[in-house]
């Protein structure tokens, strides 16, 4: 298995166009598990660690651009934690310090797991995913990006380059259910935002449907919101929990998240 380590975005995209079956690897927290357990043998690996364009974050007007290589450790630290509190809280629940130092939001999008912890905060934040290939760049609304369990809108030659999201200043939070605080794949998770200016509640849940789903409501209907969020889920029974428990937990989490954001 060849490993290519491109030094620029253009070089990375040219490699992917040339070898569409190659697998991108950035933090390695998903890809290396597959390799270690012999679950996949991609034609080649394209190591993104040396691509500077994917790192860091910046502003474009009032929109923030988060590089796909942004780690959870970076997302949970200042100044990003102040801009996107739910993303910071979600990042803090990912794995362990070792995992948060390596895992990235671009990787979370690339994997497109319904349990991806960064996804609910991106959904309530109405994020846009910027993808690129040798054919050019395009922006995909987050709700159109993840299409199913580990399925997304990326073409074989495309790469997630960045995420665009506006900090609103509206109170928001993230909550996750699991057997301990660290090293947990969400039994279910919830990001919630109370936007008083727009009079809107926005919630997105993880691990309770094939994709992360958005539920919105008028702010004056907050009392009915926990039940609405629970109803919008279509959870399954699996090793981490039952469908009935997930639905119940989502109702409880939504109530708590509302309390926290209205406080």
């Amino acid at each position, binding site marked *: 298995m060849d490993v290519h380590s491109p030094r620029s975005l253009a070089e990375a995209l040219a490699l992917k166009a040339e070898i569409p079956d190659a697998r991108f690897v950035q933090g390695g*927290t998903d890809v290396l598990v597959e390799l270690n357990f012999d679950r996949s043998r991609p034609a080649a690996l394209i190591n993104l660690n040396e691509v500077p364009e994917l790192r860091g974050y910046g502003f474009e007007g009032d929109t923030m651009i988060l590089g796909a290589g942004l780690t959870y450790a970076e997302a949970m630290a200042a100044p990003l934690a102040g801009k996107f509190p739910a993303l910071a809280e979600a990042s803090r629940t990912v794995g362990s*310090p070792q995992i948060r*130092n390596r895992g990235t939001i671009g990787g979370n999008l690339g994997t497109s797991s319904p349990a991806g912890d960064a996804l609910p905060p991106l959904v309530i934040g109405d994020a846009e995913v910027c993808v690129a290939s040798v054919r050019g760049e395009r922006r995909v609304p987050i709700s159109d990006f993840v299409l199913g369990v580990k399925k997304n809108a990326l073409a074989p030659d495309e790469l997630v380059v960045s995420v665009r999201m506006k900090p609103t200043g509206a109170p928001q939070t993230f909550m996750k259910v699991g057997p301990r605080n660290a090293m947990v794949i969400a039994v279910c998770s919830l990001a919630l935002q109370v936007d008083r200016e727009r009079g809107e509640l926005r919630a997105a849940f993880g691990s309770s449907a094939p994709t992360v789903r958005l539920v919105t409501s008028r702010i004056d209907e907050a009392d009915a919101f926990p039940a609405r969020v629970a109803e919008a889920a279509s959870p399954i029974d699996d090793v981490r929990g039952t469908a009935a428990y997930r639905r119940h937990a989502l109702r409880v989490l939504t109530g708590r998240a509302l309390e926290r954001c209205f406080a």
Partner: protein
Amino acid sequence: MKISLTVNGELRETEAWGGESLLYVLRERLDLPGSKNACEQGECGSCSVLLDGTLVCACLVLGAQADGHEVTTVEGLADGDRLHKVQEAYVQAGAVQCGFCTPGLVVATVDLLEANPSPSDDEIREALSGNLCRCTGYAKIFDAVRQAAAS
């Protein structure tokens, strides 16, 4: 493929298969078996090393990704026969039972104390949350971290 990396201050060169982890490179190619191989999925922390000064699980880094970078393993902490103060504290506190998790915990503790020289118990708990010990129940490990912080 050929990779070259600086391990514990020494430039090392080795052949590696593209799909192999940094952990495999360290243990099987470079004769550095201090970092332990257990879960191979980032759950147990026994392979914790510093990559360019950042705490990572060596099992989740490609050997090829370490090409041109600096790695510090548990073998690089002591100064000759003189143990690192964190290692000394683990010995003094009796924080080692079977010893399998110890290299990873020691490296994680060194990383913690570098960033936060006097951590609270909650901060210790969070910093070591990616390192599993199935013998000690963690009480002696906490004693060791507090002792190292105080020394």
